[in-house]
């Protein structure tokens, strides 16, 4: 992978008569030079360039680092197997600072300066939404790994895809039957008072209702809050399940204070691993989570029944059995999300090969080829599990894992089916002009 940064390129400077003559002379010289044939061949097999919009700095930096590691591993594997359409793949990284304004600039930079074939890899929803207009205007395919519902909502544009990770609406819907059937039917939700929390606030109650369970209270915590004890008395006494999706640095305080509030007599807990990505589950203060359940996109800890593909993926990315970097047990991965980078790159490979993709002039063909995809079989290219893809809403659907905290590890106790997370399409991108 390479970081690149150019300044003014001279491709658009005015051509004078003298420079034209010089150019002709130089061109003639090159044509007769012995290296010319080799040079021409190199052009026809020039690498496919993927612009990686990375959260290197800002609030998403922990995710960004692991997204880069996973991407590097996938590209290495793809190149080792012959690349895409026989061409090697090169990744160019630009930091978006996890900022939507900068994100849009970075997409523009990929399209017009680096002239990459696609843009890839964005996680945070506000950066995706802020960057999507720039991708649509530049007509450059934009493959995000965000899990937000924004792509599937069909509020973005035809150039934005999310084929490697399921969206949060689907995840919540898939969790509901298991929660209602195994943990409890009276659910109190505690969530951050911003968009990530609102997805859960809006999608969980109807999903639980369909299973005969109810959300009996919703407690929104302001994003600026650093202490949570004062909110806990709002939790109704009849609560059977406390559904929590707090994220950010305050999570440790949240869990610690929750433990102090309840002691040993607590309701069942169900959370989303987004809360604890890149955080050691054995951190001081998290003991209270022992015995509770979490959604995981892809399991952090190696499981006894891991497939050969899952094992190969973990080895390639460099995570040990505890989900930490090989050689650095304190460097915890973002396993629930980063597999999406691996799988998305293989979707890009498949779509480019289906489209007979040669260069930026084939971007529209690439969009159509991606929309034509319908399913991805579990295997080395899709180690998290099988998926279906809805080309109308540019979103994949897959299995989800429910894991229990036991002895300081997360053990997968249930895997949902793809059908559990399916929902009616809210629109159709394919009706938009390319």
């Amino acid at each position, binding site marked *: 992978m390479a970081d690149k940064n150019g300044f003014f390129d001279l491709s658009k400077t005015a051509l004078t008569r003298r420079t034209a003559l010089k150019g002709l002379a130089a061109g003639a010289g090159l044509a007769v030079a012995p290296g010319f044939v080799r040079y021409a061949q190199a052009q026809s097999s020039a690498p496919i360039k993927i612009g990686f919009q990375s959260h290197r700095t800002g609030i998403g930096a922990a995710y960004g680092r692991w997204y880069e590691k996973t991407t590097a591993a996938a590209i290495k594997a793809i190149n080792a197997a012959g690349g895409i359409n026989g061409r090697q793949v090169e990744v160019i990284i630009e930091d978006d600072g996890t900022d*939507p304004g900068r994100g849009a600039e970075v997409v523009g930079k990929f399209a017009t300066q680096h002239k990459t074939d696609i843009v890839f890899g964005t996680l945070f929803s*506000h950066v995706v939404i*802020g960057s999507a207009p720039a991708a649509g205007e530049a007509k450059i395919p934009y493959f995000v790994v965000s899990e937000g519902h924004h792509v599937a909502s069909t509020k973005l544009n035809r150039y934005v895809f999310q084929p490697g990770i399921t969206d949060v609406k689907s995840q919540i819907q898939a969790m509901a039957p298991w929660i209602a059937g195994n943990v409890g039917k009276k659910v109190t939700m505690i969530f951050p008072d911003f968009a990530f929390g609102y997805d859960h606030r809006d999608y969980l109650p109807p999903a639980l209702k369909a299973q005969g369970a109810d959300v009996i209270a919703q407690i929104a915590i302001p994003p600026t809050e650093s202490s949570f004890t004062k909110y806990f008395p709002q939790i109704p006494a009849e609560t059977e399940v406390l559904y929590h999706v707090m994220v950010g640095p305050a999570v440790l305080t949240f869990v610690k204070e929750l433990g102090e509030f309840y002691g040993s007599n607590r309701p069942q807990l169900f959370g989303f691993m987004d809360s604890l990505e890149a955080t050691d589950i054995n951190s001081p203060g998290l003991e209270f989570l022992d015995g509770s359940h979490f959604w995981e996109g892809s399991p952090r800890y190696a499981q006894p029944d891991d497939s050969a593909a899952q094992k190969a993926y973990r080895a390639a990315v460099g995570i040990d059995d505890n989900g930490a970097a090989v050689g650095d047990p304190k460097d915890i991965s973002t396993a629930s999300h980063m597999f999406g980078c691996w799988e998305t790159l293989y979707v890009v490979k498949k779509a480019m090969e289906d489209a007979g993709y040669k260069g930026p002039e084939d971007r529209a063909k690439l969009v159509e080829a991606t929309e034509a995809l319908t399913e991805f079989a579990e295997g080395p290219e899709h180690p998290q599990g099988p998926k279906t893809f809805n080309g109308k809403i540019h979103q994949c659907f897959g299995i989800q894992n429910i894991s229990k905290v036991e002895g300081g590890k997360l053990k997968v106790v249930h895997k949902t089916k793809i059908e559990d997370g399916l929902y009616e399409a809210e629109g159709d991108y394919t009706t938009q002009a390319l």
Partner: protein
Amino acid sequence: MSEASPAKAYALHLGVIALLFLLSFLLPDYYHGLLARIMVLAVFAMGYNILFGYVGLLSLGHAMFFGAGLYGAGLAVIQLGWSVPAAMLSGIACGAVLALVIALLALRTTGVAFMIVTMMFAQVFYLLVLYFAAWTGGDQGMVVPQPARVLTFGATALDLTNPTVRYMTALALFSLMLLITLAIVRSRYGRVLVAIRENEERTKMLGYDTFSNKLAAVVVSGTICAASGAAYALLFGYVGSSFASVQYSILPLLWVLLGGAATTLGPLIGTLFMYYVIDITSGYTSAYLLIVGIALILLVLFFPKGILGSIRQRWLGWLP
């Protein structure tokens, strides 16, 4: 500072506008797009400069005026289906009204208290954007649909998503605001503002109603910032709460300090400088903000009046 003849000052500014116009045909695609964005944000800095540079009032809440324009225009298109000109006017009007209300309250304070009060109001604005997420899109923000970003004049339709149209629209806004700023600072009113900055008590003693003048300055400043926010939403197609966060209150202050407070062209220079430093250094290191910080420290040490302010002090005393 010596006084320039009006012709000299206007010639310089028209020259800058002409240069920006020419750059549209010379710049590579990426820098062409980046400069359009910089011109829009330079308008934000110009609005900030009216209050900070000329009146000497340091606000830490101007993100709310930018945000008022951004949401005033963006939501008018997204939620109400208004046309681009109506949305632009809506954004500007939102900023003007907000600035008037904030000015009436905040101008009861001065100095550090003014900074804190403006920062608090901006925080209230930011939290309101999050609170009304059902309409504003909260922290995720919303996309202004591409088909709605078209400017129609009779039978002529200008697509604001077209890079050339966008650049020229940004240039038109920038040019208009630059000339308005120049006219303001050269007017009697502009001189009163500088007098307030230099010695408010003495200005009062001379018979000027300093409160009314400062009130007008906040409204002008807020309105210009709102125009920038409205243009940003319509030209770049995204409205989001990060543009109303405290970061966007600090940025115009940095741009103005860098370019030169109380110089009409300083905001453009500062915004341009900061953008290019970030763009270039981020290609080499993820610690680019450290480099930006060092650049700022060096500038403050060696050019305390900013780039254009220092040039004016040392060589070109006539610069407005």
